[in-house]
């Protein structure tokens, strides 16, 4: 008796009033475009790629079930390891370098100098150049014989590497090019810098803290949520490097040669995935690569978020 009454009571609590139902339907209708798109182009592909990853599929004949074979093959595939090494190089070397440079530019821009708007305009400008165009420009500037960079290096009596033709120097070339686009990241840092409460600096000045102390104890904690954000975006970005590599490596897939430039030194994860799927038409194998990518990104993001509790400071707004 008592039990049933409590059940009916909770049922009553759960059953919605007419107004609530109306609001729910209304919200659902307005959100419908995204919900449909999410189901059709994210959820369905997400799970069907899990299925395809367990098959052999070339688009022309129907998928053939092979179990975990693709995954086994991947872990024996030299190209996979090479693409992973190249990608992790970008994640752990290029991402921090660009982050530090964009932070330095933001600090410079934050020094209350006159004409800051002109500087901001100039620094952001390279970020609006289409990657295809900027990659072509850098291919020309990094030309070993006639390029601007080597001409400068030679005139200074410095060694002139073959850049995009030398597997040792292809990734540094890419970093150089991405440094040109650090203005966008710098402006995000600048906006965050301007959000750090001024009182903290004033109080620190009264206490006689020097520049380094203020930077390390006020600026960095104040920026830490944005640093985390840029780290995560940079990490995901490094797993998606494609166009730069394709153009800098000359974009040729001829005579059995593969993408990725000299010694496949520009074969990044997304390039390898593209090649397996759309050059070799190994859709099943590439789906397995996509799933490994997903798990890797999830794992690294998770680790970053977990450790971030120790160094990210969320001040009250």
């Amino acid at each position: 008796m008592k039990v049933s009454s409590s059940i009916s009571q909770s049922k009553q609590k759960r059953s919605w009033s007419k107004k609530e139902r109306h609001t729910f339907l209304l919200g659902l209708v307005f959100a419908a475009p995204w919900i449909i798109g999410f189901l059709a182009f994210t959820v369905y592909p997400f799970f069907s790629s899990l299925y395809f990853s367990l098959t052999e599929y070339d688009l022309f004949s129907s998928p053939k079930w092979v179990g975990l074979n693709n995954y086994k093959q991947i872990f024996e595939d030299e190209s996979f390891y090479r693409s992973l090494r190249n990608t992790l190089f970008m994640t752990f070397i290029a991402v921090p370098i660009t982050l530090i440079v964009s932070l330095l530019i933001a600090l410079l821009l934050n020094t209350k100098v006159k004409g800051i708007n002109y500087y901001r305009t100039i620094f952001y400008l390279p970020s609006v150049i289409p990657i295809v165009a900027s990659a072509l420009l850098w291919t020309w500037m990094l030309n070993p014989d006639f390029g601007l960079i080597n001409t400068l290096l030679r005139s200074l009596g410095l060694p002139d590497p073959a850049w995009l033709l030398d597997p040792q120097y292809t990734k540094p070339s890419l970093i150089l090019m991405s440094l040109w686009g650090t203005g966008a990241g710098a402006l995000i840092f600048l906006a965050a810098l301007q959000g750090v409460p001024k009182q903290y600096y004033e109080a620190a000045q009264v206490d006689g803290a020097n520049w380094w102390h203020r930077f390390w104890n006020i600026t960095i904690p104040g920026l830490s949520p944005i640093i985390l954000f840029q780290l995560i975006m940079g990490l995901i970005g490094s797993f998606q490097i494609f166009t730069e590599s394709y153009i800098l490596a000359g974009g040729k897939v001829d005579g059995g040669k593969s993408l990725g430039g000299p010694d496949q030194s520009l074969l990044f994860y997304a390039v390898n995935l593209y090649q397996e799927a759309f050059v070799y038409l190994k859709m099943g194998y590439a789906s397995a690569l996509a799933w490994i990518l997903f798990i890797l990104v999830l794992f690294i993001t998770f680790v970053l978020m977990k450790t971030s509790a120790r160094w990210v400071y969320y001040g009250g707004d």
Partner: protein
Amino acid sequence: MAAKLRKSILPHAVLILFSFLFLFPFLWLVMTSLKTPDEIFQLPPNLLPDTFQWSNYAAALETIPFARYMTNTLIICAVNIVGQLFAAPLVAYSISRIPWKGRGIIFSIVVATMILPAQVQLIPQYIIFTKLGWVNTIMPLTIGAFFGAPFFIFLLRQFLMGVPTELSEAAKIDGASEIRIYIRIILPILKPALVTVALFSFVWSYVDFMGPLIYLNDSAKWTITLGLQGFQQDHGAQWEKLMAASTIMTLPMIVLYFFGQKYFMQSGSALTGFK
């Protein structure tokens, strides 16, 4: 006094140096596009050509069907803008202004999908579009816009959260329907943010390379990015023409940037609210 002066000169000096470094590649791009082949392979190179070879531009436009690539690109851009302007504000309105159960979940998923690598869905999407017979059409490159990009939904939602609700509340009391409020009140309020959405939607479609590379095989349907890459493959060593073509391709972006600078910057400040 002297110390103060030194303090203001140093940042300026460094900023000017950086500005020079950031601007010089542009200068080099344009100057290369105006040189003769002999001047390009001259060592050491001169910054300025003897006479500006404007004919390089005409030659570049003749070497590839530039107008066709540009038309193809602009059509894709336009459809994407229409799609995003239709869908993104609807969804943003739903999750910021309609107090329905489930909007919290939708918002979390929208944010989560912002960081989901596109490669994970790429292959099944390609298989779907192949089965629908949409390969070699603009459909795969535009259909997604009509469902709203997570970044735009997020941007518009942030914008709406910062706008007082009084106006729409008053309209509601007057008995206006939700659709009416949305069209008459919300969309006009959102206008500056919608400009940002249109602008970024244009830029993303304009610079996209991987999408067209995968879906547009027929060179008559190529976009400008594919056309430029094709140019590199076929005429790789003709740097003056290649740089001329790159300059023409870049020009619309620069013009957009100078007219819509504050909208470009807006997205940066929207992201700082993303903690």
